[in-house]
């Protein structure tokens, strides 16, 4: 009996060892990944759930009025796939089924899809859900794209990521895998820039005897480049707006101090003060050149001085049509964070580490990420902006989140309206801000200008802390999709990284483009040129907004995984828009990038953009949810704007408590768990970097 048991045990052991050796051999086999190819002769059906919170931006055509395509025969009606998607479906021999709940927000879509096990579609995508795609990917809900690439699928995606390691690392989860392909804006390009009313600057500063306003003006702002920080000599005395052009400020005068010391502050005295200051300090032929054109060399105090002169001269500037004008505004109240970008010009305070307001991170000299809203310098900047607001330099509705109006339309594009309102400066996209007037009777003179010059990262330079980035938008393949759907979805993902697919997604269908003719952009690059049908139809159905037309009518430019080009935008830009681009491109203005190149200064990582998403482990997500309220407490960020609105004037509504000092300000964040929040994200960032 004992022998039998012994033999049995030995037998079992042998079988076990045999099994193990088999496993070993199979696992060693898996190190050379089997290659897969997609048999395009076989049709495959793909279900897509791409949510953007707006039915017009999904895969299917949603307008009541059908669109007749250039051939005059093809008509796209409501509910049909948009023409670009029909074309792509044919190209990859797939049939697309749009299973999107048409007006659903992407964040709601992803939660619903998660609750139903990501079974209702093969591909999920949307805006601002990249972190969800990555985190669910880590949980195994989305297909590992790195594995698909290793299997030989998506060769063009692989080539693109290999050529752009910064992009690759930005979308790689902490486990080293990629689960989504992002919408990549025109990396390395300027995003927004500053714009002004050209005629106002000239009329104020270049006219020798003007009929300035005489109403009294009250000042609060004390200036930034003052006392030991005075701009002179090595401290920004000479700056270079353009290669070969040097502008020197001759004295250590500060224009804000000069204005504050005036015994009578009116539109007239402030304007004369600024003109005299420019004459005493610079060698411009016209004083307006301090602000306009390629030789602009104004700092933040000189900008405030101009704002004051504008604010104090509403009747002169509007020929008596208005008694109030607004020197600075943002496009709408939901863009009020744009105001905080002035931080750059108060000694280079970084506010957003990427082109999204929630990216409140910067990278310090040790390579760790730091929260940008809590340092003392940020709090001080809020106080400066509060002084501006007290002087009426910022459009008051900017802070009012209940106001949903488009201020750019109101303050820039409606000068002929009854009770017109006027704004002077904004920070926005060039093409749309400098767009021509809808009617010829309306004369617009909005021009792009260089940013204020400042000490940024310890170096005097021209810098805009805003550039085109990898967006937190994109798409991913459900793990529940069938094998053939996964493979065909990979082919679809790859298609938009091929030359043909990229042109299609960036410019639209062949029939919308001029054959054998290219459009030359201000940067000298040749891009596909639109034919008359495209431009005319865009005018008819989308008020000339080519971007909307391509996205909402044609189905191109959707924020799926692809690399966006700027070429389409050039083709609906006015001459002033081109001038603005040229001005920036020919200047020495720097922007942040993923590679982080820039003028050597205090922090070698200053210019580096932060990743669009952070890959958090389940434990890290849990820590954030249970121990911090930084992301869930919108009251926290209202505090920032309350300081700007009420601190200087001390007029906060009853029951709204303002932090009286930096310590109190920091305590607000501390109570919300900022220290845990920072530590958690620092750990996540380190893990992501370690994977590189």
């Amino acid at each position: 009996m004992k022998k039998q048991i012994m033999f049995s045990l030995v037998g079992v052991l042998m079988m076990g060892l045999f099994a193990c050796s088999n496993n070993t051999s199979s696992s060693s086999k898996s190190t050379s990944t089997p290659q897969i190819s997609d048999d395009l002769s076989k049709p495959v059906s793909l279900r897509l759930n791409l949510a953007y919170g707006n039915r017009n931006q999904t895969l299917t055509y949603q307008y009541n009025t059908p669109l007749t395509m250039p051939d005059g025969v093809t008509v796209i009606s409501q509910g049909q796939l948009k023409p670009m998607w029909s074309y792509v479906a044919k190209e990859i021999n797939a049939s697309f089924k749009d299973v999107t709940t048409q007006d659903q927000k992407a964040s709601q879509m992803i939660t619903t899809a998660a609750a139903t096990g990501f079974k209702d579609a093969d591909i999920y995508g949307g805006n601002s859900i990249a972190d969800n795609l990555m985190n669910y990917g880590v949980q195994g809900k989305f297909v590992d794209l790195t594995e698909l690439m290793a299997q030989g699928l998506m060769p063009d995606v692989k080539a693109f990521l290999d050529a752009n390691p910064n992009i690759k690392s930005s979308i790689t989860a902490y486990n080293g895998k990629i689960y989504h392909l992002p919408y990549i804006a025109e990396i390395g390009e300027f995003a927004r820039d500053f714009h002004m009313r050209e005629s106002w600057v000239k009329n104020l500063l270049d006219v020798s005897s003007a009929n300035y306003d005489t109403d009294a003006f009250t000042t609060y702002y004390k200036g930034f480049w003052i006392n030991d920080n005075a701009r002179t000599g090595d401290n920004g005395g000479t700056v270079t707006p353009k290669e070969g052009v040097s502008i020197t400020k001759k004295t250590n005068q500060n224009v804000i101090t000069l204005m504050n010391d005036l015994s009578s502050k009116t539109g007239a005295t402030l304007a004369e003060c600024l003109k005299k200051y420019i004459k005493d300090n610079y060698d411009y032929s016209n004083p307006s050149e301090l602000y306009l054109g390629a030789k602009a060399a104004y700092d933040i105090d000189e900008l405030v001085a101009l704002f004051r002169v504008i604010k104090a001269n509403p009747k002169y500037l509007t020929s008596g049509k208005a008694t109030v004008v607004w020197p600075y505004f943002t496009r709408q109240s939901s863009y009020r964070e744009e105001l905080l970008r002035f931080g750059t010009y108060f000694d280079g305070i970084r506010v957003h580490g990427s082109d999204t307001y929630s990216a409140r991170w910067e990278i310090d000299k040790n390579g760790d990420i730091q929260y940008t809203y809590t340092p003392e310098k940020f709090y001080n900047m809020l106080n400066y902006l509060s002084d501006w607001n007290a002087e009426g330099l910022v459009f008051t509705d900017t802070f009012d989140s209940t106001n949903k109006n488009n201020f750019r339309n109101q303050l820039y594009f409606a000068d002929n309206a009854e009770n017109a309102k006027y704004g002077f400066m904004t920070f926005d996209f060039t093409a749309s801000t400098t767009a021509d007037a809808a009617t010829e009777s309306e004369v617009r003179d909005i021009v792009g200008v260089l940013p204020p010059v400042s000490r940024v990262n310890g170096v005097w330079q021209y810098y805009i802390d805003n550039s085109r980035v990898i967006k937190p938008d994109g798409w991913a393949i459900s793990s529940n999709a069938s094998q053939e759907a996964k493979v065909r979805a990979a082919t679809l993902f790859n298609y938009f990284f091929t030359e043909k697919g990229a042109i299609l997604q960036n410019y639209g269908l062949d029939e919308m483009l001029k054959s054998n003719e290219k459009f030359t952009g201000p940067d000298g690059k040749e891009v596909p040129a639109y034919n008359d049908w495209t431009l005319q139809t865009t005018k008819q159905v989308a008020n000339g907004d080519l971007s909307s037309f391509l996205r909402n009518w044609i189905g191109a430019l959707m924020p799926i995984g692809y690399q966006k080009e700027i070429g389409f935008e050039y083709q609906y830009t006015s001459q002033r828009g081109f001038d603005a681009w040229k001005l920036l491109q020919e200047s020495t203005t720097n922007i942040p990038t993923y590679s982080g190149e820039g003028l050597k200064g205090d922090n070698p990582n200053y210019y580096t953009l932060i990743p669009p998403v952070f890959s958090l482990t389940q434990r890290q997500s849990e820590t954030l949810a249970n121990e911090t309220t930084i992301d869930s407490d919108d009251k926290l960020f209202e505090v920032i704007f309350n300081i700007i609105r009420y601190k200087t004037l001390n007029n906060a509504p009853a029951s709204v408590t303002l932090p009286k000092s930096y310590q109190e300000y920091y305590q607000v964040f501390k109570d919300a768990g900022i220290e845990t929040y920072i530590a958690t994200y620092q750990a996540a960032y380190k893990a992501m970097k370690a994977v590189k």
Partner: protein
Amino acid sequence: MEIKMREPKAKKIFKEIKKEWQLYLLLLPIVIWFLLFAYKPMTGLIVAFERFEPSDGIFGSEFKGLSNFINITSGINKTAFWGAFSNTFIISLYGLLFGFPIPIILAILFSEIGSEGYRKITQTITYLPHFLSEVTITGIVITLVYSGASSRGIVAQVLNTLNIVPEGVKIIETPNYFRPMYIITGIWKESGYNSIVYFAAIMGISPVMYEALKVDGGNKWQEIRYVTIPGMAPTLIIMIIMRIGRMLSVGYERVLLLYHPNTYVTADVLSTLEQRLGIENGGNPGIGSAIGIFNSVIGFALVISANKISRQVSKTSLW
């Protein structure tokens, strides 16, 4: 002597159903509705005790015991939670004090209008706002009280002119104005419609009572005091019990549409906090559910208490 055996209970019920099957058939849809929409979702309560992960589902998510409750009552969200808790009570109390009597007064006034045509017109006018959605109503309110560089609402202008609200102050963002704004909006929207039930109660009072009072020399005020109000008492008590039961269910949509981060201090109620922490900004559904359960348990206790007190004091109760 024949001994009569007691009929089994189940058999008795079955016989009853068989006998009155038409009535039970009518009842069936509402029973199904309750099962589907009131009882089945109760399984979701377990989310309050979990670190809920949508992709793992209700039964697959990690069980975390009372951690979500600890989070809201003594953890990172305690200030927001207890603030919302007290706001809920205060707003409800104000609603009860100011909102509850108005429909009763309206009903009494309607009952005193002699001309039927005029009464119908006034009733219809007061009922109308009830049929507008909260979004429309709050949209109108925000426009009326809005004060900005672009425009100023008529109510804001009047209040500025009368020096009740200082010039430049934004009513919608001022915590002290939230509760009056909320209560007044509620009264405007619902008083007329809520008066229907009281008006019906008044109509149910026997005219003989009024005639008897008149014979005894009673005047109009005495009619109201000694006949109308006592005649309405059972309805009033039932309505007040129901109202107390809903004390923690403050009009969620209206708060959500009228409040602002600056007014959370007086405006944030449990249901809006539940929505914010549970759903918005990548919220934590477990915490949201914990707030919901807390809300329901207190509401349940309040109904029981109100019913018991009413039964002992006025001999009138819901059960």
